């Protein structure tokens, strides 16, 4: 059997991920995490924080919860069911950092935790920064041209 034939044969017969179930789980858990974020947001606004700060603090609260759940070994069990539901909200970013930090502490705090914390989350920061700077330059040029 030729390589290409074999690859097609394998892809044809491989059991696919249960997409309907996965999507329902992702949708509901992703939505639920946003609701938890909204509860924090409303709570902080209620306590008199201004909107931008309340929103930042709501994100920070989710990040804290994620780091905690990651640490006690619960987050990966939720994520196994939730898939993109925990990946897409800020929880996925926080889990990528905290799981890597916990995992690499056996290599020491400087060369392990410090050096490897962003192994998984790094690409998100790099590409968001690059696209942000790119946008800034374009936006600047536009303001110069059109005032």
């Amino acid at each position, binding site marked *: 059997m030729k390589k290409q034939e074999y690859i097609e044969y394998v892809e044809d017969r491989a059991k696919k991920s249960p997409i309907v179930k996965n999507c329902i789980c992702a949708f509901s858990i992703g939505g639920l995490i946003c609701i938890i974020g909204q509860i924090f947001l409303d709570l902080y606004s209620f306590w008199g924080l201004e909107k931008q700060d309340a929103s930042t603090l709501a994100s920070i609260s989710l990040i804290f919860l*994620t*780091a905690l759940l990651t640490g006690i070994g619960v987050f990966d069990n939720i994520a196994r069911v939730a898939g993109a539901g925990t990946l897409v909200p800020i929880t996925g970013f926080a889990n990528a950092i905290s799981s890597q930090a916990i995992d690499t502490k056996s290599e020491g705090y400087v060369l392990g935790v410090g050096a490897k914390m962003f192994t998984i989350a790094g690409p998100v920061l790099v590409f968001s920064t690059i696209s942000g700077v790119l946008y800034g330059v374009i936006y*600047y040029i536009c303001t110069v041209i059109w005032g």
Partner: protein
Amino acid sequence: MEIALKYLIVFLVGGTFSFIAQVVIDKTKVTPARVLVTYVCVGVFLSAIGVYTPLKEFANAGASVPLTGFGSLIAEGVRRAVDERGLIGALTGVFSLTSGGIAAAIVFGFLASLIFSSKPKR
């Protein structure tokens, strides 16, 4: 009633962001890491063309909690900084609104590594 509707919108919009990512991951060979990178870049783009800010006003946390919200914060920070300081704002504004989240992720990640160790899986 109004608050229930607000929360319903949060749920639906936030869920939809996750739903789309799940479809892409399961249906194509795109890895989760690439999906996330795409999401933040899309967030920057949507904010740049002025779509994301109205969406955030409509869906609140439903739009700000997903990673696209992170991207939109970067774009917003850059826009404000360029307005204030010109071209240098393209660099200085990137983390002006997002540093709270990034610093929190680093600090809590570090604290977690001080307190916890990884466990075997069942």
